[in-house]
């Protein structure tokens, strides 16, 4: 790059006259308003007056649920609002100059070199068609840091710095050859390539496994600390924010509801919304003793109800299996081997997704299967549900091997065991109304007349605390939490003994997640249900489960009661999972 263009770029990046980096804030957002234009006249507001201040070298976190405007605020700072978003009021002062009124090429000059971005989803944020090294090199060359051979060398250094082993070889690979964590490291290297003064980290780890998440956040913290880079951290996780940031900004519906020193806010939340968040954040809530006491009560009630129901059921001739057994589900030596295609045609590689897993689910209790992605936990769930054939091993339901059931008996088994899946956007047929979705299982099994079925649907909606007026509505009109309630109502329609929740609360916002967990607890106590609860999040386990199975790479590495796992984990992997729960180390006021 010529010296002249360097000089020009330097001038564009220069702070405003009179700006003193020792005293003045690096970034100051004053009463920011952002809206999305839906037509020539209409603007839907997304941020309705947000103010925050970031000093050089500081880490400031914006915490909020989806729709709070936290990401929109961050994107406004770097002028990368999606689609028709625009700043409609307020100021964004970076080193004293207003970004929102800057010229286009001034902003281009500022991106990368003054303000860097680490985006949210590592899977979609790298261009799949270019080598990772090239994409980082671009950042170096565009900002005049280095070019040609020197840039190539720098890329390797940056990748090493971001904690990627074997960086030289990795730089020559494509994104699809990287794991999620590796991609996120590459994105961090990219964001820091031109040594910006401010790094915007937009949920940088929420798509990653907890242990990887911790590693990457630790590394990011170390790097930005060394380089003196200020970080604007966007997150939905209050525990994580408090652990990583000095200053917290809590946003709700486009407004800042509370801000201040991180620890202070966590220990003395004043705004009712913040109070709610603090009390419901799973990472924080799981430390509370109260959660355990409540859970014990639920369990006692559920076991009793389940016993009563079993006694009633025993009298009915229709029921498959022995309903009085203590273990409603027994899994013995369950193994699933997938045949994967190798690099050459005809070549098959065995991949053992589930390796010799045994456990049992006691009637009226909850067993949680915890593991990171690829641990095989969902594969276990699908085999228990008889949606997938095991390679070996058996699943006994009320003492009967589910694979031996055919025809009518298999249908009856289906009635006794129902799933609730993870993705509330995919688990309901978008073309079915709420009523049709919940009625479908009843109709499939020919239960009741039309009138009776309708009454049953009303009753079910009441159980999951949805008004009956949602019956004619379609999934696209409901929020994630509401869909999950509908999915639960559908699962309960056939009065099952067991509900298998496959990451049933993972995709939900914190407060909604807490509500659904409460609902599941209430239903368990009322109906004597047994839950098999599949999750990657150890933090929620304490609020819902009695027994825990920790899975790693297809194997069950630890099986114990929740209390034992939390207080006295025997396996290194379990300890690692526990340590990775964000905010776990924070002392709460009560």
């Amino acid at each position, binding site marked *: 790059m010529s010296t002249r263009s360097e000089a020009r770029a330097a001038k564009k990046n220069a702070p405003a006259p009179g700006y003193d980096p020792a005293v003045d804030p690096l970034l100051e957002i004053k009463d920011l308003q952002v809206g999305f234009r839906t037509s020539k006249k209409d603007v839907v507001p997304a941020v309705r007056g947000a103010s925050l201040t970031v000093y050089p070298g500081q880490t400031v976190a914006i915490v909020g649920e989806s729709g709070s405007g936290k990401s929109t605020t961050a994107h406004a700072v*770097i002028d*990368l609002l*999606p*689609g028709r978003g625009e700043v409609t009021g307020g100021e964004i002062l970076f080193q004293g100059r207003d970004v929102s009124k800057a010229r286009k*090429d001034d902003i*281009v*000059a*500022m*991106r*990368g*070199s003054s303000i*860097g*971005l680490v*985006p949210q*989803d590592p899977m*979609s*944020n*790298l*261009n*799949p*068609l*270019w080598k990772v090294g090239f*994409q980082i090199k*671009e*950042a170096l060359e*565009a*900002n005049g840091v280095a070019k040609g051979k020197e840039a190539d060398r720098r890329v390797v250094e940056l990748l090493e710095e971001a904690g990627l082993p074997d960086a030289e070889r990795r730089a020559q690979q*494509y994104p*699809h050859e990287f794991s999620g964590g590796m991609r996120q490291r590459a*994105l961090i290297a*990219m*964001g820091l*390539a*031109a040594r910006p003064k401010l790094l915007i980290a937009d949920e940088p780890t929420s798509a990653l496994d907890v242990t990887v998440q911790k590693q990457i956040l630790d590394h990011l913290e170390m790097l930005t600390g060394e380089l003196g880079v200020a970080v604007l951290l966007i997150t939905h996780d209050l525990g994580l924010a408090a652990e990583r940031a000095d200053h917290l900004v809590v946003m709700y519906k486009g407004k800042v509801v509370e801000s201040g020193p991180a620890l202070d806010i966590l220990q003395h939340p004043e705004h009712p919304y913040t109070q709610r968040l603090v009390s419901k954040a799973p990472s924080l809530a799981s430390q509370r003793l109260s959660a355990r006491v409540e859970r014990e009560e639920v369990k006692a009630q559920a076991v009793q109800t389940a016993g009563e129901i079993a006694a009633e059921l025993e009298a009915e001739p229709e029921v498959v299996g022995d309903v009085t057994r203590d273990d409603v589900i027994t899994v013995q030596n369950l193994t699933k081997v997938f045949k994967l295609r190798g*690099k*050459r*045609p005809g070549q098959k590689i065995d991949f053992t997704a589930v390796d010799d897993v045994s456990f049992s689910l006691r009637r009226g209790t909850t067993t949680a299967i915890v593991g990171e992605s690829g641990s095989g936990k969902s594969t276990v769930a699908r085999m228990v549900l008889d949606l997938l054939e095991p390679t070996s091993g058996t699943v006994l339901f009320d003492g009967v091997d589910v694979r031996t059931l055919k025809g009518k008996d298999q249908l009856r088994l289906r009635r006794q065991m129902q799933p609730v899946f993870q993705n509330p956007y995919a688990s309901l047929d978008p073309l079915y109304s709420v009523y049709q979705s919940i009625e479908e299982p009843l109709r499939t099994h020919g239960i009741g007349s039309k009138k009776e079925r309708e009454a049953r649907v009303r009753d079910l909606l009441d159980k999951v605390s949805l008004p009956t007026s949602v019956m004619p509505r379609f999934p696209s009109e409901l929020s994630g939490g509401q869909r999950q309630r509908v999915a639960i109502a559908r699962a309960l329609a056939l009065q099952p003994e067991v509900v298998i929740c496959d990451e049933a609360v993972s995709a939900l916002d914190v407060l909604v997640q807490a509500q659904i967990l409460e609902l599941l607890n209430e239903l368990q106590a009322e109906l004597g249900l047994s839950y098999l609860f599949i999750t990657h999040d150890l933090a929620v386990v304490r609020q819902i489960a009695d027994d825990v199975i920790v899975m790693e790479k297809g194997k069950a590495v630890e099986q114990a009661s929740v209390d034992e796992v939390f207080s006295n984990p025997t396996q290194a992997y379990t300890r690692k999972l526990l340590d990775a729960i964000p905010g776990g180390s924070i002392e709460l006021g009560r």
Partner: protein
Amino acid sequence: MWWYVGKRLLQTIPVILGATFIIYALVFLRPGDPIAGLFGEKPVNEGVKEQIEAQYNLDKPFLVQWLLFLKGAVTLDFGNSYTGRPVIDLVSQAFPVTITLALMALAIEMVLGIVAGTIAGLRRGGLFDSTMLVTSLIVIAVPIFVFGFVLQLIFGVKLGWVDPTVGGDWSVSKLILPAFVLGLVSFAYVLRLTRTSVAENLSTDHVRTARAKGLTQRQVVKNHVLRNSLIPVVTFLGVDLGALMAGAVVTESIFNIPGVGNLAYNAIKRGENPTVVSVVTIMVLVYVLASLLVDLLYAWLDPRIRYA
């Protein structure tokens, strides 16, 4: 990579076999006596008839005929037409014209379509975008021979810039107007495809990340929008070469070009089965080879495919 090429080559075999079988079955179904047609009104000597039938394998069962045809085709021996000329001679005379015409049309539609589609996609809703959209719709909606005649009338007859017809002594410059006409409809599709693809890619996460790195609009478009957007376009272009060869039937008839299309058309009308089957087989081959090429190009464009 070579495994991939090998696998794709193997996959083409059933396609070629199946396609020739279908086309063979179709012409075989055609009633009437091809030899009787050859002699017109004159009575046919039984001996001569049998001799000719034997020569064209018409006395053998259908499956055997097909297999004999395949056997010949492997060595580029497509037999003789009913007039006695080797089919391969007819084809090798006509083929170069048509493939030149089709490739020219492909080049025209590709360059114009991608350039116009990219500009339209980058400025969606602008004046250029709207103009191009209307143009592409009209091009798709009006039968191509209408355009052929009108352009022939304007540029060939009224303005006299080009020869209205091509004739036997064809040259690349004479084929420009016919190639433009032939590529017109596909140009509209390429334009629409590129436009949608560019507009979609502009709003992807990785493009936003590229901007966040500090790249200029030019760099973003060049490295991160265009290449990603071209993948579906390349797929279309590959399939299109076969369609262009067939579309040449119309263009060649308007501009009187002695190509494969004309050859096929006349052969179909006259019931010259060996020629029909041979020409269609060659077109299928062109299609299959073009899609193979596209798949390889695809693997080059998209590293994710390379290792799949």
